[in-house]
């Protein structure tokens, strides 16, 4: 939270997190029986060491940036959108379906926005259920969004199988029309040749700046932030708290759906079951490190993108799931360091971490 933590202490907290994950990396690799030094150099070569590796990191970071911004948006209102995973999944399906249904020869400037709009609408719709349950019934969003994630798996399987959206005998849709494909970055930056990084990254960075600017520059954005800090006080100020909470979750779902720009439209060119899986949960980690600042979100997405690509680089020697452990370590260490630093600076009155529990105190 910007108000309770200075930028420098946030930076120190992130440094603590990085050091902790580095130590964890070395210890785990060593326990696994490999040389930390060799694995570290392999990790570096596979990510930032070559231009292809760097491009792949950008590619991996793209959906994480979208889901990170999505989770961050809901977090402003004190809501934990653990459902970005499911919202991204149904959004990707929608993007894939609309992308295949468009007539051939539709120009990119029409086709991509249409497919993106479908993805965002589907993600928002998937978030609408927990949003209404939260707003109307006070059901805790962590549990309801988690249920929606499980439901998304079944619904997608149903749509692909019984719904007949998949090619027979597969779990993927037809190819989207060429116009709906987001061009790769290699078209402009030949150094990235071969990597799957696409212009979706540019859109993601832009959305990180736009969305975080809306926190301060729009009335609704300001109100959502204040609802997250003290819902009761905002209700007394005649701010429609319930509507703001619902809107926050729905828009967050839409943003999560937009991540399909980097997966379906920018990479595969079709939707298949499990495409982009995990980006929703990692998005939570991105939001927790980025804390409502555009550059923070971009850097956090790059960090976790590096971990994911690095995991693939060392996968022949050490299981890539090592990087999931490191993700958890980073999140824990940053949150812990935050608490310690807040206490150190003498601002112990405000709880550390994301916006205070004003909006969620009633249920859970």
């Amino acid at each position, binding site marked *: 939270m910007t108000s309770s933590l200075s930028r420098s202490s946030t930076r120190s907290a992130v440094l603590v997190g990085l050091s902790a994950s580095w130590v964890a990396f070395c210890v785990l690799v060593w326990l696994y029986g490999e040389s930390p030094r060799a694995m570290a150099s392999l990790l570096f070569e596979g990510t930032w060491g070559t231009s292809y590796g760097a491009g792949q990191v950008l590619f991996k970071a793209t959906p994480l940036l979208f889901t990170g911004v999505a989770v961050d948006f809901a977090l402003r209102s004190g809501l934990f959108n653990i459902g970005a995973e499911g919202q991204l999944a149904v959004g990707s399906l929608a993007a894939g379906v609309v992308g295949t249904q468009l007539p051939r020869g539709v120009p990119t400037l029409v086709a991509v926005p249409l497919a993106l709009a479908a993805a965002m609408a589907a993600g928002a719709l998937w978030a609408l259920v927990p949003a209404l349950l939260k707003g109307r019934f006070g059901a805790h969003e962590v549990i309801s969004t988690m249920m929606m994630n499980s439901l998304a798996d079944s619904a997608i399987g149903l749509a692909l199988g019984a719904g007949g959206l998949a090619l027979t005998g597969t779990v993927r849709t037809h190819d989207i029309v060429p116009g709906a494909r987001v061009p790769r970055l290699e078209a402009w930056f030949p150094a990235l040749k071969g990597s799957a990084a696409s212009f979706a990254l540019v859109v993601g960075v832009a959305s990180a700046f736009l969305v975080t600017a809306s926190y301060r520059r729009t009335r609704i954005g300001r109100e959502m932030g204040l609802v997250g800090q003290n819902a009761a006080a905002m209700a007394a100020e005649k701010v429609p708290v319930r509507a703001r909470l619902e809107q926050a979750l729905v828009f967050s779902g839409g943003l999560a759906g937009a991540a399909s720009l980097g997966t379906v439209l920018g990479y595969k060119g079709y939707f298949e079951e499990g495409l982009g899986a995990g980006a929703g949960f990692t998005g939570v980690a991105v939001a*927790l490190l980025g804390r409502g600042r555009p550059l923070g979100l971009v850097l956090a997405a790059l960090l976790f993108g590096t971990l994911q690509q690095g995991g693939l680089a060392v996968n022949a020697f050490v299981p890539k799931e090592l990087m999931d452990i490191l993700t958890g370590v980073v999140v824990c260490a940053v949150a812990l360091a935050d608490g310690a630093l807040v206490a150190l600076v003498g601002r112990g009155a405000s709880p550390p971490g994301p916006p205070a*529990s004003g909006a969620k105190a009633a249920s859970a």
Partner: protein
Amino acid sequence: MSALEVIVSGTMLAQTVRMTIPYACAAVGGVLCERSGVINIALEGTLLASALASVVVCFATSNPFAGIATGVTCGAAIGLVHAVLVVGGRVDAIVSGIALNVMAAGGTRFLLRGLYGSSSNSPRVEGLSGLKRAGSLVRTLSDPFFVATLGAVAMVAWMLHRTRFGLRLRACGEDPSAARAVGVDVARVRVAAVTLGGAVTGLGGTALAYDLHQFQAGMSGGRGFIALAAVIVAGWRPWPAAFACLAFAALDALQIVLQNQTNLPPQVLAMLPFVTTLGALVLVSKRRAGAMRAPAGLGHHPH
């Protein structure tokens, strides 16, 4: 056999009771944590990690009881970490829970590949043999896991309302500042409660793995979250929480039967437990009063 015959049969009842055990253990663990005022969404990861821990030790030692002990210890250890992060480190409980779930999901796959060179499942373990010859219902009811789960529910219910520790635990959950003012060590009580809750959840994870005679990646399958929903539906009380879990497990068992008996696409039935959970959350929120409400100090630190 027709679908109806299967549903009313003793096998179905036995199946339901068996499937209740992991849910009920996690729910009772959740009741312990949340009545002390600590939100715990790490139940899911706790189930998963303790399932693997029990299988690893059971496989290595061929001693099912060593496996159970390890599973329970693993659950307690995760509870302790969660408690230390949240109570000691003042980390947001949801953040800590998410981090622990991510680490459990990744860590179990990491170990699975490291130990057994597989990305999906462990080798087979025998688990508890029990009474092989008795009928399925008798066998289920005499199952040590069932007895232990029943015992855990009864113990927690008794402890919460009949012991000094239980009184203090509830005080920490209702009003941590007041509890501290009368001399209760809120941090210590909460750490103890969450650790104990983790241990009970660990028992559930062990039962889950022994039931299938192996560990499978991601085998907790959202049970921790459904158990948490059961805690809420049951108004944070152990016995009603266990019965809510029985209801969810019955749906789960029903779903499996219907999948074998009907031509519906399997995904439709697989949605059943999750839709019901959402529905149940809506229903209880309509009439939340008196004993059905959340602990007032849930998620709050003492001032």
